[in-house]
């Protein structure tokens, strides 16, 4: 089935090259202008898919855009996004996205917070077959770089001036006093 779809698409495109190209270039340019897709007019002849941004934290949204020529998959047919279950929990199938008259589609998708960090390939089906193109999406944790271990927020500390320090001060005072005692004695002698 899948192979058949692709083969048929190719055949049709080569059968009427001039006409198809002219048609698709026109509609493709319009679609690109309207949807802001980064597809060239030429790319509209082939199936495309892209994802933006290419790196995202779990729980954030990405925009997935693409197109499949209406010659291969009628414009009425939705694009059904595919990836692994980690990204699309319903058996690996994502949103069913309506396509415009040129065969282009665009959808916002929120990556589940359950999606583990990693690289995912997003493809799509159209008209019952897998279209055979994919886009890479890198998913990171919400905390992109997870710090290791505990946090050193006690560098000061409550005991900085604790027992040891007080004992030092005490002994210091007594030592000073001991130094002064002979001084005092000498003073007393001189006064006599």
């Amino acid at each position, binding site marked *: 089935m899948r192979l058949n779809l692709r083969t048929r698409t190719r055949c049709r495109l080569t059968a009427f090259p001039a006409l198809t190209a002219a048609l698709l270039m026109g509609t493709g340019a319009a679609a690109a202008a309207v949807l802001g897709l980064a597809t060239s007019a030429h790319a509209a002849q082939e199936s495309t898919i892209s994802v933006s941004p290419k790196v995202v934290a779990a729980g954030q949204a990405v925009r997935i855009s693409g197109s499949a020529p209406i010659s291969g998959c009628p414009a009425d047919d939705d694009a059904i996004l595919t990836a692994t279950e980690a990204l699309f929990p319903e058996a690996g199938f994502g949103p069913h996205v309506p396509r415009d008259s040129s065969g282009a589609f665009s959808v916002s998708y929120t990556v589940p917070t359950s999606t583990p960090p990693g690289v995912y390939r997003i493809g799509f089906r159209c008209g019952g077959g897998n279209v055979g193109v994919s886009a890479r999406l890198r998913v990171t*944790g*919400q905390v992109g*770089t997870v710090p290791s271990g505990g*946090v050193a*927020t006690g560098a000061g*500390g409550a005991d900085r001036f604790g027992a040891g320090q007080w004992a030092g001060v005490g002994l210091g*005072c007594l030592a000073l006093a001991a130094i002064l005692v002979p001084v005092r004695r000498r003073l007393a002698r001189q006064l006599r």
Partner: protein
Amino acid sequence: MIPPGGRGAALRRIVDTAILGLVGCGVAALAFAALGSGSPDGPPAVEVADAAWPAPGTASAGGPASRAADQPSRSAAAAPEALPRSVPVELRIPAIGVRTGLVPLGVESDGGLQVPADFAVAGWYTLGPTPGEVGPAVIAGHVHSQRGPAVFFRLSTLRPGDVVRVAEQDDLVAVFEVYAVGEYPKAAFPTGRVYGNVDSPELRLITCGGPFDARSRSYRDNVVVYARLIAVERA
């Protein structure tokens, strides 16, 4: 040389006083060392144990009535929508009298979370969500400096229901409500619970706690306050 009764007697009196004073101070300091080694100004212990771990969405036990005034009224139903990424600039925790600017924090070369150089300000972790974004935003601050209590000295006394406000550069204020307070030995820091993905905007406030080890000059534990976004205000 020295005339009796004049300058010499005065000098002698001064030296007498000094000796007496020094002996007094010395004895007092030694007594303080013997009695006061229990660090009278150490950080308070965690009041609310980690045991009560409410599932997200369940109403947490409210704080003391005196703090109820802080709490914005909230309709239990609708959690606010997540905020766009915006640099946090100020942290306010009325329940413990905290109002501080925020400095950016990264990771140290050993992979640990950086801490603010200034003991009087807290810092936010830049390699994670900003407060109000989906995910666990992290703010860390010191508990104590060599000169006395630091910005998060009383963090461990926060209780479920207390309110934490984070003002951001885009003039929005993310309002969080504490739902749990935990204390863990640093060696058993719950990395997954603190930094792991969550479904909604949350906040983690981290400081030190537990007994102080004079030899390593550090606290044994970390105190972590867990809060979730309950409202968004305009600055």
